[in-house]
């Protein structure tokens, strides 16, 4: 049983990790919490389901769906976040929340309010592994997520563009003075986060299906995972997501599945109160 719960926790944790990573990337570049992050997940799942239902093959549908989400991310940055530069934290939160409501509304218009399935990437035959039964999709989720995280790590630490983005997150003015285009970094961060979110949505859709409002809880939990890991820390976001997923799964399995979500948020609250900077966060000292 333990193996089953751990595996389930790892699976959903991988999804939370991708969403949390998206939060972290945008926060690092712009100091904005993008409450519409969950909607990228939704777009990924719904768009690919829609394309598949229209007759396209899964790989192409998935690619197009990621493309759609990336486009939405870029538009969001250009028309909402860019315009509201310098606004207060609360204002920015409201703007991105408004964006998430807008996107959900558009989803019901473009698609519908029904639940949609997505075919598993390699069929539905369950595999038996280490005493646990799992869908092949689980392997895809964990594997592709790990690959995505590795690629993101490589991007930020080994490419010039990625390093430029890190520079902006450390000191925007200095980065500007070094010739880095902050605007381009912002656009890239939104695009990247949207792509990651969409990927998460596509990966999880075969297991838990997708619908117009699937982004609300996923976005919230991804945000919680990012905070748990320490806002602004990429590795923290991934760790936070995995921890959250596993704790939630263990709680649901051993204690009460009805309160699955409550365990997740209780852990977050405990972490906030006892680990005020998150697992890996850095506290910015206030200069007086």
């Amino acid at each position: 049983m333990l193996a089953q719960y751990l595996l389930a926790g790892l699976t959903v944790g991988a999804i939370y990790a991708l969403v949390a990573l998206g939060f972290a990337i945008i926060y690092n570049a712009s100091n904005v919490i993008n409450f519409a992050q969950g909607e990228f997940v939704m777009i990924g799942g719904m768009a690919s389901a829609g394309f598949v239902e229209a007759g396209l093959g899964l790989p192409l549908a998935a690619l197009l769906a990621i493309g759609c989400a990336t486009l939405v991310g870029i538009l969001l940055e250009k028309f909402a976040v860019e315009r509201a530069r310098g606004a207060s934290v609360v204002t920015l939160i409201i703007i991105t929340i408004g964006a998430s409501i807008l996107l959900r509304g558009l989803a019901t218009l473009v698609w519908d309010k029904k639940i949609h399935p997505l075919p598993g990437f390699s069929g539905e035959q369950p595999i038996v592994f280490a005493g646990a039964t799992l869908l092949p999709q689980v392997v895809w989720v964990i594997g592709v997520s790990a690959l995505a995280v590795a690629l993101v790590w490589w991007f930020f630490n080994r490419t010039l563009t990625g390093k430029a983005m890190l520079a902006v997150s450390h000191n925007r003015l200095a980065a500007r003075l070094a010739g880095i285009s902050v605007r381009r970094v912002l656009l890239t961060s939104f695009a990247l986060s949207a792509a990651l979110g969409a990927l998460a949505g596509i990966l999880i859709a075969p297991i838990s299906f997708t619908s117009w409002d699937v982004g609300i809880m996923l976005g919230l939990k991804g945000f919680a995972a990012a905070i748990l890991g320490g806002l602004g820390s990429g590795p923290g976001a991934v760790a936070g997501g995995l921890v959250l997923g596993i704790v939630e799964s263990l709680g649901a399995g051993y204690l009460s599945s009805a309160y699955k979500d409550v365990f997740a948020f209780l852990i977050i609250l405990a972490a906030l109160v006892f680990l005020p900077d998150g697992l890996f966060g850095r506290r910015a000292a206030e200069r007086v």
Partner: protein
Amino acid sequence: MSSSPTASSAGAPQSGSRRGLLALAIFAALLPLALPNAYTYEIAILVGINAITCVGLNLLIGYAGQISLGHAGFFGLGAYGSAILASRYGWPPLLSLPVSTVLVGALAWLVGRPILRLRGHYLAMGTLGLGVIVSIVLATEDRITGGPDGMAVPPLKVFSYAIGGEKTWYWIIAAAVVLAVWLAQNLIESPRGRAMRALHGSEVAASAVGIDAARHKLHVFVLSALFAAAAGGLTAHYSGFITPSKSSFVHSIELVTMVVFGGMASTFGAVVGAAVLTTLPQVLTTLKEYEMVTLGAVMMLTMIVMPQGLVPTLEKAIAAARRKPV
């Protein structure tokens, strides 16, 4: 002892808000003349209920500079508290309502101490988490709360005469709104209100003159929870039925949006924000499918174009127009 500058600045804020309160009371008294049917009365009552919650929330967000993305939790707890005491324990609603409100205040006191040590996004997450937990518990403990389908609530009774009907409730809620605004304005104009605004301006400077930041934040947090709980209790006995969606994350966001839209650090802004954003979806039910899209677009556009909120932006525009030579 020169006092002319002090006299005028002593007069200004007080008389302005007194006039505003009077205007609000007169408006509330005359509004029924413009309400054609029960449905419009219902909307007015809904506006009033949201206004009470938002006035309290505005004290926390606009004046004290904190944030709460879980305030619907207090609203729902106030509603369910009174409903449970009245229907399962047979308490008279006139008693269960205030008791429930006070109990929610006590809960806010307990959770407020640790939660308010957080700042910014972390505080947002903390309050969000609390709100979500409350709404899940309310939906899951169906033996006590009736679960996701909700529970029935006995009506308010005065001397075994049940109070019902939109017209009667309108006056109750209108009076409650005026009371809420009066209390909030009193607080804001008092030294405590000044201390609260000082905390918002610079917490470190405020503590350097002896203001206990943690205690003040806690007081405002509890006060805003009391407002929300009272509004929740009133809703419960007015509609005769409550569901856990009253304490949902979505509702919390709606409340914050009303406060920010109407204008932070403006009690009347909170009322206006509640009024506009409560009636807007009702107006849009004709375009049911476009409701979400429009709401989202309105939220975004307002914050981008009027980041201060509606009422302060209008105030500034009026002040600027006055200064222009005619």
